Every structure is written in C-alpha cells, then in structure tokens.
C-alpha cells in the first residue's frame, strides 16, 4: 500500500480525488439535504452521463468482438466458421437495427430513403422476433434440463447433509403437487414450514453477512484503504 502511494503520479492522484469525490457525493446525498439546493437532482443528472459512457462502451464491445473473431478467421482456427456466422449476424443486425428498429437513427426518413426503411423493416422484424427472441427462449428453456441434472447430483444421499437436503427437497416438491393434500394434508404444512423457517433463516444469515461485507468492501474501495 505504502509502495503504491509512493508510485502514484499527480495525474493518478487527481483521478483518485475525482473518483473519491463523486463516490462520496453519491453516498452522502442519500443522507443529507441542503435547503434550496437540489442535491438529489444533481446526483440524478450526473447519472445520465453513465449513458454516454455506456454508448462509447458499446463501440468497444463491437470492436472487441470483431477483433477476436477476425483473428479466428484469419488464422483459420478450428471454429472459424462460427466466427464468420457471428460477424455476419452481428453486422446485419446492427445495420437493420439502425435503419428499421424502434431505435432507428432516422425514423422519419429525412436522410435514409423511405424505400430503404420499408425494405428493412420486415427483415429487422424477422431477425428480431422470429430468430433472436426464439433463440433466447430456447437457451432459457435449457435450464429445465440443467436443473434436473443438478438436482439429481444434489439429491444423492452420500452424507448426512445430503440426506437432509434430499428429504427436505422431496418434502417441498411433494408439498407443491396437488396430489399431496389428497394423500395427507400435512405435506403442505411441512412445505410451508421448511420454506418459512429453516430456508428463510439460512438465506437471511447469508444476506446479512453479505450486506455487511458490501458496506466494508465499498468503503474500502472508495477510500482505497485496505481494512
């Protein structure tokens, strides 16, 4: 730490002061108010600058993707065909989104001819609604299978803890099914008890410790002091 301090240039020091100042400002605005000065407004206004930074960051993302996959294609790596597909998809979606999406650059056809917009709109709609949305849903749906295999692994009674987990898990699953109450009305009550007490207690313990960890971690980062 001391070594780091010695090495810090004037530029770095200035940057650190700005970082600390802004961070401290955001933190303190939550607690204090100055009559006649809209501190919260200033804070909200400053947050809009993040949008500008993010916009620039999007360009960085596109550049990184292009660079990484262009290298793949150039060196004819084993998966270079996927890189070609990715780049075609990336740039075609980018171009059609700029012309025809709800966030199009020129929706009123001031510069871009309306014929081009009319031509591009169904293509963008097809790419977005028929391909992107469906692929997204498909990937999400994979979770069902992943959960099944993870549950199978977790529910193997190899130790006392795993057996407790297995019994608790089975009781909760059983309690969720409509047939459970027909078999024995107590299953729903057991499910509710497991979810409301042992489960909540465990989760709150983790959350409480994590919340304190966040406070310490954030302050440590803010003031660059390692305690």
């Amino acid at each position, binding site marked *: 730490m001391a070594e780091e301090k010695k090495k810090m240039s004037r530029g770095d020091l200035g940057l650190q002061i700005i970082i600390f100042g802004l961070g401290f400002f955001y933190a303190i605005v939550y607690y*204090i*108010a100055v009559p006649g000065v809209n501190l919260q407004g200033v804070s909200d206004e400053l947050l809009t600058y993040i949008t500008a930074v993010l916009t620039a960051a999007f360009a960085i*993302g596109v550049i990184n993707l292009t660079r990484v996959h262009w290298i793949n294609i150039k060196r004819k790596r084993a998966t270079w065909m996927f890189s070609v597909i990715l780049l075609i998809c990336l740039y075609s979606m980018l171009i059609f989104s700029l012309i025809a999406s709800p966030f199009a650059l020129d929706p009123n056809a001031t510069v871009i001819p309306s014929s081009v917009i009319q031509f591009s709109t169904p293509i963008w709609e097809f790419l977005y609604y028929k391909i992107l949305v469906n692929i997204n849903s498909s990937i999400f749906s994979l979770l069902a299978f992943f959960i099944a295999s993870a549950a199978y*692994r977790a529910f193997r009674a190899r130790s006392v803890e795993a057996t407790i987990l297995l019994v608790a898990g089975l009781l909760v699953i059983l309690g969720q099914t409509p047939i459970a109450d027909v078999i024995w009305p107590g299953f729903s009550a057991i499910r509710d008890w497991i979810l409301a007490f042992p489960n909540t207690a465990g989760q709150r313990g*983790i959350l409480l410790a994590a919340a304190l960890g966040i406070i310490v971690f954030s302050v440590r980062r803010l003031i660059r002091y*390692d*305690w």
Partner: protein
Amino acid sequence: MIELIPGRTSQAVLLIIVLVAIYEASRIASKRKLKTRGIPGLDRIDGWIEEAAKLKRPVFFTPGTGGITDPDTLAGLALLGYIIDHCLEHGAKLIVANSDLQVQQMTEDMVKGAYIKAGKEKEFTADMVRYVSTRQFAYAAGVMGILRREKPAVNFFVGLFQAEALQIAETGRTEALYQFGGTTNTDQLPFFMTTCDQTLIGEELYTAQGYLSSDPDAISKLVGPDAGKILAILLILAGALLLTFGNSFLVYLLGL
C-alpha cells in the same frame, strides 16, 4: 445549512458506528498474531492453475452479468487479480469472458497491465479477454461455447450471477473441469454448491482477498467485518427481544 433527511438519520448514525467498530477491530487485531480458519478451496486455486499449465489447457474466468457498480463483480475482479498473477507465474493461458462492456474494459486493462508488468506483453492476445454479450442468455450460450470448444482446465465464475449460472456450471461439470464459483445471490447458491468443487458463499466473496494474502496485516483486516456482524446480531437480538415484550423503542429509533 446541511440537514439530515428524516427517516435516514439513524441509518447514517448506525453506518458510522459500524464503520468505526470495523476500523477499531481491525486496528486492535493488527497488533496481534492471528490465524484464519481459512476458506476451503482458496488454497487449491494455485494448484489448479499449475495443473492447467501442465496440461497446456487454459484457465477460464468470468465475473458474471453484473455491472461495474455491483459489489459482487468488483469482488470477482479482486479475485481475478490473484488468478492473473498465478497464471503468469505458471505460464497458464487465461481466458476471460464478460457480459458487461465496462467490466470488459476493466478486465482487459487488468490482464494486459499484468502481462506488461511481468514483461510478457507479447504473450497477451486480444482473444484472452472477450466480450460475449450483454444479453443474459446470449452470454450464457457464449460462455458454454467457450467451455465446450476450448476445454479449459479450470472454470472460475465469481461475481454476480442469475439464471445463467447453472447453465455455465453444468456445462463445466459435463466437461469435468475444476470449478470454483462464488456469489451472494442466494437463489443461485444452491446450484453453485451442487456443481462446483469449491464455492464462495455470500460474504466470503468479499473477504477472499484477505484470506488469500499471507500478509498478517491483511488477515487482521478480516476481523473488522466480524465486529460489524456482531453488532448487527446484537441489534437483531435486542430488537427481537424488545418486540416480543411489546416494546417498539428500537423500531422507532431506527426509523428516525
């Protein structure tokens, strides 16, 4: 004239008390020789990276879908610093995949900076730190693809994760990788536990850096948050007891 916002005054006072307690506890602990109970798995990181280098397979790291303002992401990046150092030490190739664009920029700086500092600038290539996608499941698909195609030996996924965590973890499990996970998201923690060889649970994520350090001073700094936790537990107990006996003084005090 500066005024404290009503309803937040006690929060501000409590925050100051907790911070002072944490600082004082760390200061007192720094004067004593302390030993940690350790976090299982942290000591295995070095061995896994060494094995990856011997197998000539890469080491994979992803900080999840969180942004640069998420504490989980920042804690993940702190661990990344440690992983980079050990990859450089053992000569293992590192692959970092990101979902957030600012995190991408930061991780690229971290990895590139470490390679330059170690005099291995020529070994750094653009494809070591990759932006995958800001879309949650496109990111998941991209990471799953990297794990399947490039077959890393170790999969570190430490940071903020949502539903995509299980997809990444199960893919890593199928590929029989060493898996090291960490998050504070209690919805995802059970999945981490079932699929990872080692998991950082909740607060361990923020303290891992201290545990990894052999510096006694860093170890003493772990005591501080424990003091904060003790304070919080005492407050919870006092509140529960007072409310049980029909006294809502503490609730009123904290609502000021």
